[in-house]
């Protein structure tokens, strides 16, 4: 068991939706990192819901500058802290999937390649949720969003999700992991490992979104569980180049069980669901799940 402390460094009372997975993600991450941390956030749900001036939910120092530059802002923060001899301060940057895999990719790539001693956590809710559910490079095949809508000539998003953790791994950084808010012990352990890593660390966290995915707000964790149990989201880490699956479902459930409760997939034909199942099977086979 991993000890998850009670003290919240992301205070309650922020303006996240009921059932918001992002706030769970950040709360867990900050609890793992502790008070001696500086947090950076990209523009997005997280920043907007936690910092409406004159309020803030952050009990650790926090900075937001723009949408696409949290990797670079974190680089500056990290460099400045280290030159002041503050080597023990954790530097953690948060970005949504849009701020990470799309508009923020260059800035993040630079930060990772330079090897700043920091942790970047992508809270991936698989679309631009803050602006109203537009598709991102992390939107999965078949999901209907407001910019990849289903229609008479469309079944929704027509490309599979960008494989961001492996793009990060290709940077040769010492620690890359995937995680899910539905597996807090696994996530917290990975955040701690990332923080202890000398150099750049990247965690790609799947974070179900009640509003964007279309499930009732009491089922956030359940959706995260189903993603992992069906093999739609695989929990692994790559530590100094060594790949390990960190959680193996006893028996992989059919992907349909994950898709069915979500409004974004409800339009899919059996044929398309079968196609998604094949994607998932292939990915599981490749990673040895």
């Amino acid at each position: 068991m991993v000890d998850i402390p009670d003290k919240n460094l992301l205070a309650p009372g922020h303006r996240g939706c009921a059932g918001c997975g992002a706030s769970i993600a950040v709360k867990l991450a900050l609890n793992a990192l502790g008070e001696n941390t500086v947090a950076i956030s990209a523009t997005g749900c997280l920043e907007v819901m936690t910092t409406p001036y004159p309020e803030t939910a952050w009990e650790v120092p926090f900075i937001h500058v723009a949408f696409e530059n949290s990797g670079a802002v974190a680089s500056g923060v990290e460099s400045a802290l280290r030159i002041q001899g503050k080597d023990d301060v954790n530097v953690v940057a948060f970005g949504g999937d849009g701020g990470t895999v799309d508009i923020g990719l260059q800035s993040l790539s630079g930060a990772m390649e330079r090897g700043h001693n920091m942790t970047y956590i992508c809270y991936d809710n698989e679309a631009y949720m803050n602006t109203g559910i537009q598709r991102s490079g992390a939107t999965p095949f078949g999901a209907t969003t407001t910019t990849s809508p289903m229609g008479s000539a469309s079944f929704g998003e027509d490309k599979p999700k960008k494989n961001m953790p492996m793009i990060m791994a290709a940077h040769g950084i010492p620690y890359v992991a995937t995680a899910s808010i539905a597996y807090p012990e696994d996530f917290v352990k990975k955040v701690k490992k990332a923080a202890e890593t000398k150099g750049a660390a990247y965690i790609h966290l799947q974070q179900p979104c009640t509003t964007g995915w279309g499930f009732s707000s009491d089922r956030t964790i359940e959706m995260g569980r189903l993603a992992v149990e069906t093999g739609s989201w695989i929990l692994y880490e790559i530590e100094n180049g060594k790949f390990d699956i960190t959680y193996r479902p006893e028996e992989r459930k059919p992907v349909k069980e994950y898709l069915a409760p979500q409004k974004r997939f409800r339009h899919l034909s059996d044929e398309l669901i079968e196609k998604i199942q094949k994607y998932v099977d292939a990915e599981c086979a490749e990673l040895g799940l």
Partner: protein
Amino acid sequence: MIREVMTANKAVAEAARLAKPQVIPVYPITPQTTISEYLAQYVADEKIDAKYVKVESEHSAISAAVGASATGVRVFTATSSQGLMLMHEILFAAAGMRTPFVLADANRAISAPLNIWNDQQDSIAQRDAGWLQIYVENAQEALDTTLMAYKISENPKVLLPSMVCLDGFILTHTVEPVEIPDQEPVDEFLPPYKAEHAFLDPKNPMSIGNLADPDYYLEARHDMQVAMENSIEVIQQTCDEFAEIFGRKYGLVEPYKTEDAEIIFVAMGSLCSTIRVIVDQLREKGEKVGLLKIRAYRPFPVEAIDEAVKNCDKLAVIDKNVTFGIGGALYTDIKAKIHKDAYGFIAGLGGRDITPEAIFEVYEKTKNVPEKEVTWIGLKED
């Protein structure tokens, strides 16, 4: 103090070394590149105790600069042209977040067409970002102004970032003698920066860069306007203090033979050196003419300009930039704020040489009242 022959880029790098920035995120671009090279070498040779952040773009250079400055350290960066354009979004954030660092801009034309030569369109296009902008005429002024810029920006009444604008190639790649001050008087003039308004420190957690809704945003922007107004006095004070220690006098503007002038040229940057020679030649012919060099473009020093031009009849404003559909930016500002007959001239875009003949032409046209309010000088007829 030593005296050396060097380019303005080297002079800026020397100023940055003397200012002791702790973080230097910088990305190379012509004609700024040698600044980034000198600073990399200074760090490699331990002449500066700084982190040199080898960013992958100017957007990341300015973003890292904001992040670093927000921890309360002194930060330096430099860029040019397309690089400054790529920074555009974050320039506004840097000013809005009140991070008081200094950026040297090697003034260069903007694409398209692609052009690496000098004009001032790049920094002029950033005039509304909330940055102080000071234009320099030579390498010594580039060094001195970079040092002063830190003191001005870090003043609690200001807390806005500063842009030191130096003409690409004309200054950045031309050598001239420069006095490099010793470290000790520089330290006396510019003590270490201590952020007191907002900084990232786990012992005292603050949130910086929050969302501000319509109940708060207007005040945040107004505070910047007040800071910009305050900076007029702070720039003058800082120049006076600098003169006391280093003996070189600067101000918001620099008048030359304006006292009894009937026509006054108004310009910024290295062009002023050419104009000064022409003023002398015209004076020898009995023409009553002068030059007003604008150093501080933002804040726009209306009172200082008014004072310098109070006795003249006409102003000939030469812009190395254009605001399409209206004229040069300096000209339109002068027209808006200074109650004199002013005529605008667009010249030197994309590195076209502004020759003595071109300056004479500006003078003749102004004297005889130009046909148009804004005249393009040196256009080839086809």
